[in-house]
């Protein structure tokens, strides 16, 4: 959208005003910092997984600086951060994992 501070998003987003709806899922340290686990969010068409997280960082100061340390899963599959989101996608933000022992 015009006025966005995230160049990655602005560069990919056509100036049509079209938006996509994404279900954002947060876990562990990220959920705790954000104070929430799920958010339905509308973003400009062309927004990437990382771009969406950067918007969230701008909205939630406790998440600032986390973008380089998280991975993303779209519809339960790991995807690169520059993956463009589609309408109806579920995007999970995956902090560094520590299962096992």
């Amino acid at each position, binding site marked *: 959208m015009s006025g966005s501070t995230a160049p990655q998003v602005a560069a990919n987003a056509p100036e049509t005003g079209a938006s996509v709806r994404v279900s954002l899922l947060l*876990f562990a340290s990220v959920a705790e910092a954000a104070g929430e686990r799920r958010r339905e969010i509308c973003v400009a068409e062309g927004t990437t997984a990382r771009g969406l997280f950067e918007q969230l960082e701008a909205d939630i100061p406790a998440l600032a600086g986390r973008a380089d*340390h998280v991975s993303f*899963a779209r519809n339960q599959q790991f995807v690169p951060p520059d993956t463009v989101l589609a309408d109806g996608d579920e995007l999970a933000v995956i902090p*560094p*994992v*520590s*299962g*096992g*022992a």
Partner: protein
Amino acid sequence: MNIRLTHEPIDADVLIQRVTRPGNGGICTFHGIVRDNMDGRPVVKLEYEAFEPMALQELERIGREAEERWGLTDVEIEHRIGELRIGEASVVIAVGAPHRAEAFEACRYIIDTLKTTVPIWKKEWYRDGAVWIEPTAAG
């Protein structure tokens, strides 16, 4: 192959029974146990959280990979979720193969891969606070 996430204590004997078959000359298990300290700092309990549907899918993918690569006959993986006390098992892996070398290698591969790719997170609780463990995070 059986893959489970559970909020109840893991019964390792059940997993071992399931991989015990006449064709399996080698059975190898790994038990991850809640330790009472982190580099000397006393730990009072652990908490595990998972993105459950995706964690199950990833565990299954790792299990299948191990089956194919080492020709395993049986693979059992069970991971505990929720709050765990010291001494309880967070994960138990049991594999059965015709020979021991394959069983050892596959079991090691499964736990090492699990720790780096499966969306499960550990929180360590100390007497005076708690921390999410994020091994690959810089700083």
